[in-house]
């Protein structure tokens, strides 16, 4: 790399009136380096970038680029803004050619073609910006910047307005472009994940004082694995430098309070003895962390059949439950069958082992939830969990020293350093803290029951889960084997639109089955058990915050996603696993508790986001989704997600790909 720094910022101060926005900023960026500046919103990072870009004159200090002091904007240093700066009155190619007015016509044509190709917009040269998606417009802007052949690119949250998947795709594309063009890039973001994905070095800024707190080098080859140790270390270093957890926006308690821990009834109180609570308790018991599980107990639970995804095997292995699962007579689940067009088309997806997660078995299980939940709770007890049954928690008081739980029928509140909310769909803390948000895109209901005498189809896939796509949008039916002769059948549809006026669940169910040729055949000799099918809400929701000082939420208490990919128990299992890690970290190192919680919050929310995206993409165009599963190139990544690797995904490009293809098809349909 060149010895003269590409960018040098020396003692820059910016004051607006009496407000000090930047305080003595000093740094250097080498030529060809990709540097990210992160910090909470309003910390002045955009102001800093505007100073460096020459749009703002600093109150004090100097910025030099390649040895020359900055006096104003310059075409050798192009700014890519957060808001959409593509000119809507020019076509894509005219936009890209904007900075090339001095070039010859021939040269201009070649340059434009080159960069349009580079950002993946070939075929859209004559399109108008209004015909493009937000992500595509952002690509136009990047192509326009690159075409001017600048030495330096300044990017101010360029992907901030894009949805999650497009953001991921754009990051990968930016890295690819940077790898080939070797521009110096200064990239401002508030997203720590984004910074660690992209940067050679991350500059961390803080508010009050508005200064540069730390420089975190990320010495990792790209593409970067979300789960790699060095990756996590970099993330922790950034969180630590910010001293504020980005996710919760809450300052961590002053370090002094960590000294004498007040005596409490238990270090951790787990509310709820469902799968999430039981699995967490098993982990805590195994780690020797003293805790108590408060279980309401509503045994026997309703007759719910649920099917697991493969990634949960790792969790069950870690808590020593796998053998019991294997020997308790649950039906093994070797794959999934999807059908379309009333059963005329089908796709069989046999599961694979997931060696990257240490899972060598290629099957998971269908479970009767009542029995499954009981076994898990009993297992937690054998691992040293203290379980108090019949305890209804009415309210939780949280302060910086811990939690006090008001339990029905108990005179004094129960004290704990941390409360883990595994209260299931009751979402105790989510409601108390008002962080629970319904997802209007996935307001489903399910009508389901157990049956005998169901024909499960050809023998080789008879024990798999069957997902039958129904005619109405976002409607489908499941077929899950519970035992040798009992099968759970459920119909899921859009809440409001699905049931006709005054229609009972039972009648709706019968109508849907009768209208579907394949289901009608399979259910011809079926007998309903336990009083017939019942209606249950299945609206997706998520917590805006899943952790804060002294609390975290897991399982259904954290988020619930539409059941089409059998994600329910996996959300419980994976979040319990991550919660155990966060709790162990927070208790052993109270000074950094906020970072552990913030990390937990981000990881679990991101996982839920991936599930929801996956489900929405499936609903948007089931045939397209299935065709991608048949595509040898796309299948491994998509299957890995469907088998539950959403919390530490390796390759989300497949989702962006699906998104792009769906968009293309929709555009074609709209214009025809």
């Amino acid at each position, binding site marked *: 790399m060149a010895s003269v720094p590409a960018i040098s910022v020396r003692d820059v101060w910016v004051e607006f009136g009496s407000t000090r926005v930047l305080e003595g900023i000093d740094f250097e960026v080498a030529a060809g380096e990709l540097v990210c500046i992160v910090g909470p919103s309003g910390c002045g990072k955009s102001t800093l970038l505007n100073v460096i*870009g020459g749009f703002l004159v600093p109150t004090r200090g100097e910025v030099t680029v390649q040895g020359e002091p900055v006096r104003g904007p310059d075409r050798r240093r192009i*700014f890519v*803004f957060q*808001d959409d700066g593509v000119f809507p009155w020019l076509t894509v190619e005219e936009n890209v050619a*904007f900075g090339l007015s001095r070039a010859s016509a021939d040269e201009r044509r070649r340059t434009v073609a080159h960069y349009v190709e580079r950002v993946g917009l070939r075929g859209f040269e004559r399109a108008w*910006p209004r015909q493009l998606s937000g992500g595509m417009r952002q690509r136009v802007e990047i192509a326009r910047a690159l075409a001017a052949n600048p030495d330096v690119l300044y990017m101010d949250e360029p992907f901030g307005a894009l949805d999650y998947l497009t953001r991921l795709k754009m990051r990968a594309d930016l890295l690819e472009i940077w790898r080939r063009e070797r521009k110096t890039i200064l990239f401002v973001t508030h997203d720590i994940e984004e910074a660690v994905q992209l940067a050679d070095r991350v500059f961390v800024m803080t508010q009050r004082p508005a200064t540069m707190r730390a420089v975190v080098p990320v010495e990792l080859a790209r593409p970067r694995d979300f789960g790699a140790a060095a990756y996590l270390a970099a993330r922790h270093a950034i969180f630590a430098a910010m001293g504020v957890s980005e996710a919760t926006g809450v300052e961590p308690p002053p370090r002094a309070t960590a000294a004498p821990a007040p005596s409490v009834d238990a270090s951790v109180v787990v509310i709820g003895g469902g799968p999430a609570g039981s699995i967490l308790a098993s982990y805590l018991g195994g780690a020797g962390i003293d805790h108590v599980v408060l279980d309401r107990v509503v045994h026997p639970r309703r007759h719910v059949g649920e099917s697991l995804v493969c990634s949960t095997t790792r969790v069950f292995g870690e808590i020593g439950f796998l053998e019991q699962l294997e020997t308790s007579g649950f039906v093994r689940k070797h794959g999934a069958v999807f059908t379309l067009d009333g059963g005329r088309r089908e796709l069989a997806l046999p599961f694979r082992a997931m060696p990257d997660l240490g899972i060598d078995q290629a099957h998971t299980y269908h479970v009767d939830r009542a029995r499954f939940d009981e076994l898990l709770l009993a297992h937690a007890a054998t691992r040293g969990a203290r379980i108090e049954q019949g305890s209804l928690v009415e309210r939780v008081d949280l302060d910086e020293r811990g939690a006090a739980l008001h339990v029905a029928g108990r005179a004094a509140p129960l004290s704990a350093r941390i409360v883990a909310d595994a209260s299931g769909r009751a979402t105790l803390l989510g409601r108390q803290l008002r962080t629970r948000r319904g997802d209007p895109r996935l307001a489903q209901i399910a009508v389901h029951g157990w049956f005998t005498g169901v024909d499960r189809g050809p023998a080789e896939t008879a024990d798999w889960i069957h997902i039958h796509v129904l005619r109405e949008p976002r409607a489908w039916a499941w077929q899950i084997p519970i035992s040798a002769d009992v099968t759970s059948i459920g119909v899921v549809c859009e809440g409001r639109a699905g049931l006709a006026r005054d229609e009972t669940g039972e009648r709706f169910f019968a109508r849907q089955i009768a209208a579907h040729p394949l289901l009608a055949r399979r259910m011809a000799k079926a007998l309903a058990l336990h009083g017939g099918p019942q209606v249950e809400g299945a609206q997706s929701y998520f917590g805006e915050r899943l952790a804060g000082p002294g609390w975290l939420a897991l399982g259904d208490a954290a988020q619930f996603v539409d059941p089409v990919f059998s994600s329910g128990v996996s959300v419980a299992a994976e979040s319990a696993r991550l919660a155990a890690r966060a709790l162990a970290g927070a208790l052993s190192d109270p000074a950094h508790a906020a970072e552990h919680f913030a990390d937990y919050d981000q990881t679990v929310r991101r996982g839920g986001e991936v599930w929801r995206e996956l489900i929405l993409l499936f609903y948007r165009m089931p045939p397209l989704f299935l065709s991608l599963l048949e595509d040898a190139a796309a299948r491994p990544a998509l299957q890995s997600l469907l088998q539950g690797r959403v919390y530490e995904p390796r390759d989300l490009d497949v989702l962006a790909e699906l998104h792009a293809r769906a968009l293309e098809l929709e555009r074609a349909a709209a214009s025809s």
Partner: protein
Amino acid sequence: MWWAIVAVAHSAIFPTPGQVVLGTFELAANGTLWEHIGASLFRVGAGFGLAVLVAVPLGLWMGRVSAAHATLNPLFQILRPISPIAWIPIAILWFGVGDASPIYLIFIASVFPMVVQTTSGVHTIERRYLRAAENFGVSRAVLLRKVVFPAALPQILVGMRIGLGVAWLVVVAAEMIALRSGLGYLIIDSRNAGNRYDLVIAGMILIGLIGLCLDGAMRRLEGLESVRWRFGDPARSGAGG
């Protein structure tokens, strides 16, 4: 209904629809109808065209240069509310009773709304576009041609639509006072020369129809690709996803 009212009232002067149609045919047959329409359109075209040539550059300049805006805007704000009809005596004084007078009146009437709209079009260009342009260090000419003008174009078109509407309104009034041709002249002349109210009504209807056509033509301009970003895209949103 019109026919019924005339019949019931036994009006000797007010014509029935049938008479109006017959009168129109009569004018079309002897060729004077086309002469009148042509004369009116010519005056509007000339006056309005001149106004566009003056208003758009002036508006762009006032939009970009704040000193120009500060100086000229008060003057225009004073001149704008004066009805074009009030200018008639001065127009006759300056330009006589030939074609120049109505062209001048049309110019005066339509230039102000277009200047105002163009200026506000430039003022409301979003900062992000100007910053993006500034970034690439383009020359003033390129900035004007590729950013300022196209960004203000939708507003300029709105101004032109208003201006053309006013121009059409004024041409008729101007022709009623002087001159020997045009639709306004047709109306006044028909009344003066023998109470031909059928031709008066015919002239009124023609004025209305031609005004509608002119407005329709201006609206079509708003469908041009380079301004659709501002006026929305009815074809696409109608098709839906």
